[in-house]
């Protein structure tokens, strides 16, 4: 290996690491606020990429049917709950969101002509279709289990993951998609070619991380999410509903996932089940941060990215094995250095 190869591999590693970092942050956020280990995070990556690819191919993305289906399912649940408790007043806004929003999305997709729109508008539209799936999944799968144990929530996560992968296959089909790069520019730095897309991925990830940091440090809702993560009872006593905090954390996780997918779509071919492996690597990074520390998780993500790209050079058949094996020394190290706290619930 010479320096040039090392630089190339590092570049690859950092690009992937940036994506893993975003996913790791989303996983830490969701776990801290809701105690859900969000295995379906990766599905949002795939859905984001495939939705954008669908628009660019002039097809109606399967996301639309997911949006309509989940919306209808929630509407049914809400109606049943409202009829049982007699509180029909609250029904209007729930129905408006869960039936109205998918209807608006359908109107835009069918009446408009997304294939002819500029890339930026297509990206926004793809996000607008994928992000609401986050809170919808929360409403259906997790909200009824507000006080369940971490283990129960984990089992539900596995089920949600398998369901979403199946639905992904149904709606997007088995073939993969790749989207054109955001920018065709490329530069040569020190003998290594850096593509515009690389800069887009790293730059967008960095900007997103800064935005998230400011959100958590400065905004009232950001602080409310942190408060819920630190002390749920305390947060409830301030009037911060655990359900709303949970929903918001799922909105953020879905947005981060979808955006990650859109960013990597020009670099790798994305299939309906591609997200799972990407999400798992984000999970390894999140574990490095103990599912609690954002900066350590982000650093862990870069480490995972670098480890992956270098091991694909030396032992490409084992690259996944090597990456996932990282979890063992990390867990040993964490179990030796951190005080173990029994789960209270």
């Amino acid at each position: 290996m010479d320096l040039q190869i090392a630089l190339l591999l590092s570049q690859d590693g950092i690009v992937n690491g940036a994506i893993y970092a975003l996913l790791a942050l989303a996983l830490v956020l969701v776990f801290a606020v809701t105690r859900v280990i969000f295995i379906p995070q990766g599905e949002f990556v795939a859905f984001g990429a495939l939705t954008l690819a669908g628009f660019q191919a002039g097809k109606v993305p399967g996301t639309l049917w997911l949006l309509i289906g989940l919306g209808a399912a929630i509407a049914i649940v809400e109606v049943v709950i409202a009829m049982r408790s007699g509180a029909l007043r609250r029904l209007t806004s729930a129905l408006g969101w869960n039936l109205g929003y998918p209807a608006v999305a359908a109107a835009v997709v069918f009446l408009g002509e997304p294939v002819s729109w500029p890339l930026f508008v297509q990206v926004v539209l793809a996000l607008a279709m994928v992000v609401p799936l986050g809170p919808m999944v929360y409403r259906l799968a997790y909200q009824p289990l507000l006080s369940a144990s971490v283990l129960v929530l984990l089992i539900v996560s596995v089920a949600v993951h398998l369901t979403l992968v199946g639905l992904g296959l149904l709606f997007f089909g088995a073939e993969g998609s790749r989207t054109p790069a955001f920018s065709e520019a490329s530069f040569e730095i020190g003998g290594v070619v850096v593509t515009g897309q690389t800069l887009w991925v790293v730059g967008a990830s960095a900007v997103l991380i800064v935005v998230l940091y400011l959100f958590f440090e400065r905004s009232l809702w950001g602080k409310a999410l942190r408060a819920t993560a630190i002390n749920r009872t305390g947060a409830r006593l301030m009037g911060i509903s655990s359900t709303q905090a949970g929903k918001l954390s799922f909105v953020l996780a879905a947005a981060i996932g979808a955006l990650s997918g859109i960013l990597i779509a020009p670099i790798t071919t994305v299939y309906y089940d591609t997200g799972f492996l990407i999400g798992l690597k984000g999970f390894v990074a999140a574990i490095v941060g103990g599912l609690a520390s954002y900066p350590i998780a982000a650093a862990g993500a870069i480490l995972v990215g670098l480890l992956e790209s270098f091991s694909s050079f030396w032992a490409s058949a084992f690259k996944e094995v090597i990456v996932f094996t990282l979890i063992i020394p990390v867990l040993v190290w964490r179990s030796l250095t951190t005080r173990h706290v029994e789960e209270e619930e």
Partner: protein
Amino acid sequence: MEQPVILEVEDLSVGYGKVEALHHVSLKVRAGEIVTVIGPNGAGKTTLLSAIMGLLPIGAGTVGFLGSTPREIEVERMVAMGMTLVPEKRELFGEMSVEDNLQLGAFMRRRLGHRDEAATMGEVYSIFPRLKERRDQLAGTLSGGERQMLAVGRALMAKPKLLMLDEPSLGLAPLIVREIFHVLARLRKSGVAILLVEQNARAALQLADCGYVLETGEIALAGPSSELRDNPRVVESYLGFGGKH
């Protein structure tokens, strides 16, 4: 003139599983009044406050607040209506700064569209100057007394109509207890209704207008504090042999 009733608990029963922790408890708190609930450990005092706040499901009975009697008591809704609880464990946000903790105290007010947070924070800082000195410090690094000040300050940020406190004197030095009680007396003057659960019966009965004695989940005695202070049973069980005061 009688002040309006802020909180009216009627016939409240709460159980954990099959064990009933509160039986048919009724009590009333009026505006500008401090009402104390005293009683031994395990009598159900914390359960009472949790049930009123909506943290625990109610078995039977009603909780009327500001003239309305919600069928289902939800914490968020009670907070929005102007009820605040300072819990026994304080439940502060330890990894956040003192100022962030205070800001979150006004979370519901902000959501309801009130924009007077800065002024309220100024008032809290003038009540507890110590908090102002420590505004950038993490809540988890405060001393016990400062934590209690922060818990009370955070509750005040919500500008409550009813302030409930669960054992505010627990584990605190007498000087700080006096300071906190002094603050409660000041709040009463401004028209806030206060429901104070205390083990320190002597201090509580000195401060409060009315008192209830809760024993094994039932109201054993009730009346104006001055009467309770002279009641031989209260003197024997809760005020000790040291005389009336």
